[in-house]
């Protein structure tokens, strides 16, 4: 039994929503470090992830990855597919305990694209 694998979704046109989010002004260097540390640790887990690590969002078909960022709560949205594979769709930042609706809708749209076989997934850490 292997450990978890974390990937990011890349659209057919080559754009990667999570990379674009990480490049945005809303995300700091410390935020990126926190997210990368989280992903690196997840990739060394062989068993179950703690329930609070990747949490199902009620009423949605996507999950949130809980990351303590730089004075903010980062919530990259993702889907979990068989064989311990987590695919990050796009980024979001929790505000007032809630996620922006736009980000949730975007993530749902990206999840549907994956279901339809569109786009591709790339390992989060290429090497």
């Amino acid at each position, binding site marked *: 039994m292997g450990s978890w694998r974390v990937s990011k979704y890349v659209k057919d046109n080559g754009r990667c929503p999570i990379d674009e989010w990480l490049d945005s002004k809303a995300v700091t260097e410390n935020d990126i*470090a926190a997210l990368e*540390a*989280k992903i*690196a*640790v997840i990739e*060394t*887990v062989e068993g179950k992830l703690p329930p609070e690590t990747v949490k199902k969002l009620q009423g949605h078909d996507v999950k949130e990855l*809980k*990351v*303590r960022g730089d004075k903010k709560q980062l919530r990259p949205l993702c889907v979990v597919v068989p064989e311990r594979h987590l695919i990050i769709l796009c980024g979001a930042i929790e505000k007032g305990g809630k996620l922006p609706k736009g980000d949730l809708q975007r993530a749902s749209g990206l999840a549907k694209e994956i279901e339809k076989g569109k786009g591709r997934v790339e390992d989060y850490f290429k090497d």
Partner: protein
Amino acid sequence: MASVTFRRAFAASAVSERLAMQVYSLRMSRGWTQEKVAEETGMAQPRISALESDCHNVTLATLRRLADAYDVALQVKFVPFSSLLTETVVDVADKPVASFNLDRSPIERYQIWSGFSSNQKQSAPVHMTINPSPSVRLSASTPKPTAAPKITEAYTQYVQ
């Protein structure tokens, strides 16, 4: 990692995440509920739940209480960033941690130590007869290393 800001944030998060993962996997491996851990550590159940998701501001005292509850050792040390990085990306985060009664490694470590201790490098190592538990008997077939008596005594107390 070239950026000071990045590496500090990465190190803080990596340690926090790995700890949280260990707190969770320790509980799972013992088949305990959060209530049971709370009872054993004297902490509140919501605190245990919080520690399983984030160990960002955890104190050494809290970690010691968890270590005592699970009868495992707690190790905290300063390391170069390269070591932390290796551990973060290579070592299994939820590797099982045996409690003292199930852990044979202290004995194995003693054997290694006695085999390679000063003045004894070329001779056969001290042989140990290990009874299942709780006593450990040391029977030396070769002269003991100079420093061995003290350590043997300390070690025997430790395992008993």
